[in-house]
């Protein structure tokens, strides 16, 4: 499949935004439970929510560049009963609205106690909004991943590992960003967040490498024999039916030599996992903002490369009808 930069940016930007929101809410929960020094000011949540909104909005803007008819994008919410893409289109603005309310409630100090748990814990509006936002963030990870995982004949994508990867990679980049952000806004929580980011990055690395190993062992189920229905071991294409290009020869081929694909694989393994792990281990305990910022930037670049490889690696069965296309 051809990696389209609008989709690469959409999935990486909203993934980081979702992860950052989950990090903000995790800090709030741990501070509430007394496991973490509470961030000194509400600016941590307010500016953090703004950052989340900026990332989600950036992803939303990027997604429009993928459309042939962006002016009709509103129609995409119609088929949520059957289409994961439609569900994503609904959940993303819902998450943005919830994050906006979450940040606004923190900004205005609007925290009326809605009810009290039997243990005596007072549940206020930000906790309710945060819980709702966290559920939407996880739902959005599921929707985004299932867009790819629900296509059975794209076997590189059609796996529960795809859902795990989108969730863990988005979570890792979001928590790394949260660590860098808190080094500036709430230094007392930085070492904790950096620790979580380290663990998530490690988990994401395990899941992504497992996917690479799985995909390396895949044997194509569709062959020239099943594509044409001719049971002869040797079938060679002599003509695609036209000399110029077509949608089919452009959309489903990444057009890069195998060498570049494996170079991108090495690059994303280094940039998305190895380097951020080292930088988080280096800067996390000290709360060094520049090191943690570098960790996020490197990891984000690595995740764009990861997403490029995710597309390039997927072999669409329609390519069997265009065997001479490179």
């Amino acid at each position, binding site marked *: 499949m051809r990696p389209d930069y609008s989709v690469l940016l959409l999935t990486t930007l909203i993934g980081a935004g979702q992860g950052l929101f989950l990090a903000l809410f995790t800090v709030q929960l741990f501070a509430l439970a007394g496991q973490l020094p509470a961030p000194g000011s509400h600016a941590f949540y307010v500016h953090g929510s703004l950052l989340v909104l900026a990332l989600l909005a950036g992803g939303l803007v990027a997604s429009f560049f993928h459309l*042939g008819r962006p002016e009709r994008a509103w129609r995409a919410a119609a088929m949520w009963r059957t289409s994961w893409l439609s569900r994503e289109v609904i959940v993303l603005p819902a998450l943005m609205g919830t994050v906006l309310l979450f940040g606004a409630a923190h900004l205005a100090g609007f925290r009326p106690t809605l009810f009290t748990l039997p243990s005596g814990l007072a549940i206020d509006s930000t906790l309710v909004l945060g819980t709702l936002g966290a559920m939407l963030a996880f739902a959005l990870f599921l929707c985004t991943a299932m867009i790819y995982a629900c296509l059975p004949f794209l076997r590189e994508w059609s796996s529960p590992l795809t859902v795990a990867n989108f969730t863990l990679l988005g979570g890792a980049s979001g928590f790394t960003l949260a660590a860098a952000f808190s080094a500036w806004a709430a230094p007392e929580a930085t070492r904790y967040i950096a620790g979580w980011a380290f663990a998530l990055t490690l988990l994401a690395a395990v899941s992504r490498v497992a996917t690479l190993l799985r995909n390396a062992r895949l044997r194509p189920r569709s062959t020239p024999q099943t594509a044409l229905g001719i049971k002869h071991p040797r079938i060679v294409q002599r*003509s695609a039916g036209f000399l110029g290009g*077509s949608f089919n020869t452009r959309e489903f081929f990444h057009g890069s030599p195998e060498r570049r694909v494996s170079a991108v694989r090495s690059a994303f393994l280094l940039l998305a996992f190895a380097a951020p792990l080292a930088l988080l281990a280096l800067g996390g305990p000290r709360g060094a903002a520049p090191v943690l910022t570098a960790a996020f930037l490197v990891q984000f670049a690595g995740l764009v490369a990861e997403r490029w490889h995710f597309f390039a690696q997927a072999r669409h069965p*329609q390519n069997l009808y265009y065997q001479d296309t490179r």
Partner: protein
Amino acid sequence: MTQLALVIDLNVCVGCHACVTSCKEWNTSGSAGPLADTMPYGKDPSGAFFNRVQTFEVGEFPDTQTVHFPKSCLHCEDPPCVPVCPTGASYKRKEDGIVLVDYDKCIGCKYCSWACPYGARELDPVRKVMTKCTLCVDRIYDRTRPEAERKPACVLACPTSARLFGDIHDPQSQVSQAIRDNAGYALMPEWGTHPANHYLPRRRTSARIHEDELTRADNPLKVDGLLPRPPKSDPSLDDVMSW
């Protein structure tokens, strides 16, 4: 339930591309607007087509067969492209099973083309909406045409009658009989899409000739050997022609 479909006889197709050009001609001049091309006379021509004929070589030289393989939307009975569409622009008609795109609702996200294992959908490069074979839905129900012309343009254009059109759910239809009698098959059955279009395989055409069939064993002229030479006095053809 009706399921209209094409049945394509690979034994007969000669790869002339008449179906491709007639399809393009019909669908670029239809009510749905032109089926656009970019740089049609330029260096790298491109454009949207509903139907393509591809050529494959099967076997090892010298025992090879050239297979011309026309491919358009297969109008699957369980189309994977339809449920993924976020806007509902892609739909399968209940009354005749044709899979269609509502060009006014399509946002051009290309997701349906990813969801089609056959690569049957092509994005129109100018209108920026997904296009695909309509089985000439604007022609097959046109009551102003004579009955014989209410068929897809590709079917009418085929000089070898390699393309049949009809209802594959009607066991008595020409297409159902062709599928039954000639071992018609569907493409990529492994994905459970149940394509409506079927292909008829190559069939071996051969005749066995025995040695004694080359010369007529019961030739009456040879039963008693050679006939005696006629005497010189008998009238000959020369006597008639030259006097």
